[in-house]
């Protein structure tokens, strides 16, 4: 079925296919591989996108349910030559290792900072508790974002 949505600020009309998830539509249908497929059960947050103002696991959203939605993926956060503040903070703070979880963390953290420009350490931990990182032990991600929060 044909659906329409706004994706990273651009209006798109696409075939949502039969039963595919929003994650497969983004990765395989629209050529946006930044959202990662790591568990397909909504447990790890690697596929996090913002949909109508909420951070969601795109693996749990049917593509057809994105009809009419406003979507932001990791590809929509940086300008051509300027990183999003969250991306810059994680680059400076060493919050990236293998990087597979990174797009999900970036989207979830950017979403957090949009509503809470100066989150507390516990608010950061809680907001990102749905994103699993296997490399960093979370320390460098936390320090990066605490610094961005002015802590």
């Amino acid at each position, binding site marked *: 079925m044909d659906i329409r949505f706004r994706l990273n600020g651009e209006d798109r009309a696409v075939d949502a296919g039969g039963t595919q998830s929003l994650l497969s539509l983004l*990765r*395989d249908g629209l050529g*946006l*591989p*930044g*959202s*990662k*497929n*790591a*568990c*397909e*059960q909504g*447990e*790890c947050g*690697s596929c996090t996108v913002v949909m109508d103002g909420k951070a969601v696991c795109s693996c749990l959203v049917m593509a057809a349910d994105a009809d009419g939605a406003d979507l932001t*993926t*990791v*590809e929509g*956060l*940086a300008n051509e030559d300027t*990183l999003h503040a969250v*991306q810059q903070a*994680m*680059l*400076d*703070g*060493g919050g*990236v*290792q*293998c*990087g*597979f*979880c*990174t*797009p999900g963390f*970036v989207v979830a953290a950017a979403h957090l900072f949009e509503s809470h420009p100066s989150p507390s350490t*516990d608010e*950061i*931990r*809680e907001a*990102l*508790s*749905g*994103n*699993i*990182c*296997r*490399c*960093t*032990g*979370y*320390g*460098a*991600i*936390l320090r990066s974002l605490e610094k961005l929060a002015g802590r």
Partner: protein
Amino acid sequence: MTTTTGTRIRGGIGESVKRPDGIPKLTGNFAYASDLTADGMLWGATLRSPFARARLARLDTAPALAIPGVHAVLTQDDVPGRKTFGQITPDQPVLVDGEARFWGEPAAVVAADDPETARLAVAAIDVEWEELEPQVDMEEALANDEVFRYAPVRRGDQEATGPVVVEGFYEIGMQDQAPLGTEAGLAIPDGEGGVDLWVTSQWTHEDHDQIWRSLNLAPGQVRQHPAGIGGAFGAREDMSLHIHVCLLALRTGRPVKMVYNREESFPGHVHRHPARLWYRHIARDDGTLVRVEAKMILDGGAYMDTTPAVVGNAAYFAVGPYRVDSVLVDAYGVRTNNPPAGAMRGFGVVQACFAHESQMDRLAAALGMDPLELRKHNALATGDPMSTTGQIIETPLPTVDVIEQVAALPMPPALDTADPLRLPGGTGLTTTPEYVTRGVGYAVSIKNIAFSEAFDDFSEARVVLAPGGVEVHTAAVEVGQGMVTVLQQIARTALGVEQVAVIPTDTSEIGSAGSTSASRQTQMTGGAVLEAARAVREKALERGGGDDLTSEGVWLAGELVMSMDELCADGPIAHHARFRHPPTEEPDANGQGVLHADFAVAAHRAVVDVDAELGLVRVVQVDTAQDIGLALNPQSVRGQIEGGILQGVGLAVMEELIVERGIIRNASFTDYLLPTFLDAPDVEMVLIEEPSPWGPFGAKGIGEPPTISSTPAVAAAIRDATGLELNRVPIRPQDITGT
């Protein structure tokens, strides 16, 4: 020889240089193996055994081939070359050879127009299995003589005895590496009968040497390229879909991509060996160790993989970083029908360390001695023989220092009873502060760096200086640990030139860099880059007739005498190095010899809060002091240590593959529990810098020690809080409540 100090070069060693792959990873533009595509690409999928052991009674591919959009369905009969693969011994069929020996073993592979059609084709294969009784108990396997390797150690007076004896039995569950990126590969036929492969791997040359044999091609017809890797931790030291995806590409003449989903990733790679260990420590009344005896069984699962090397590590590090003159170890790696085990961060030393550190605490209790004093009293030091192998330790070994430094770190504040987020179980208010007890535990470890036991361990690198900058060519695989940054830093400092790019290089263009494992790449490929870079600098100074090299060119007595363009007028200046660490020996019949190239020690202190009635644990803080040689990139060192500690915490309190009759019952991220942001303890650390004699600038490998002694430290802390024996990890709620 002229050397540079690196103090004036930006981005040299000692700086927390930013990762060159950081921005692409943060913006979603970094290409992982699972992101690769090619024109006309087909998708592969795998038919797997539903049983741990079963006879393949019938496999008819015709119904699958009849589906429109299905281009190939291949079985073991379609393997044109060597029918088996395996790193040490090729004992695993490429596809099931009549009998499946573990749950999830690949039996057939298909290629189709899209993933959905490929999955339908797998389901359409007409297959009949006859289940056979699996062998799933490691002690029964040993009794049946199903042994991949027996590694004995006999050192010193075998009759030695003393007044204080403590015995213990310990068990380690099956931990999964659970890298975030699953197994993925893209194979593209070259049109001339050969194939190019991009695949999740820790060691491209080792894979390549197995792949061409099974494809029945000449080595040069298969080129394996480093691909973007979403974590590894040992899971990619053995092959997964490599041969399958090449077979499909060569059969169809089209590019084929395969990506495992999470459920098939769990049986699709090797795991940490589950183990059972029996220990006896004998000491004098003053705490001096007299004798250590250990029997260790490690469950290798259905195929050999790296089990022999893992068993060697368990045996030779059975005692830990302690001096004792009488040792007996019998270590076995056995064959079962459980999921195959192989490399995981710590590689056999994790299992041994949990047992020997639990024993040291028991011995301290029996002696009425402080556990840290007991450890310091027996601490192994430079100049001592290894208690197991007898190898004289010639490299720095700051065992006492790591113990004292970690103990000197400040303790965390007392439990904040007003904050539910701090309680075991979290904000659900499952417990209340009066039920919570705090515990503190310590553990110490020693790990070998790089490959051991006479393995010809080398790494190749080529450094090329051109006007545009320096290229470092290597087949060494970056899996997330930050090697690409460290190699840049080494090249900058050694050369004096700032513009350095690390170029991932395929198997046809350079020799092996060895595996990204065994904490070895900083020392091995770092060593190769240092050697090559120093040679390039010498050649440049000779060509330019100067005494210094910078990004501008060659200098003499403070004057620029030749620009970089002039210097490279006749072509780039290049040098190819093959770096080897000091040679090691095969163990003799008693496990004696110079088996290891370098060692690193670490100590951990864990602080936990426990509700013993509900069996809830919160790991509050894990601190460490680690022997790292030199911090080439302090931020990266810290990241490795924090990440490694959390994997050790995971093994201590939550991570375990539940296997029944050989079948993994929790093959998903819903059911295999991984530590989240809210489970992660605070970490304070001391980095102890005593230079390794052969690491670049004195650096030592750092990746594994954080994962080794963190687990027994957490276990010790929970014992301290509860008074329970807790001889098994992970420690589950029922182990604490006894229900």
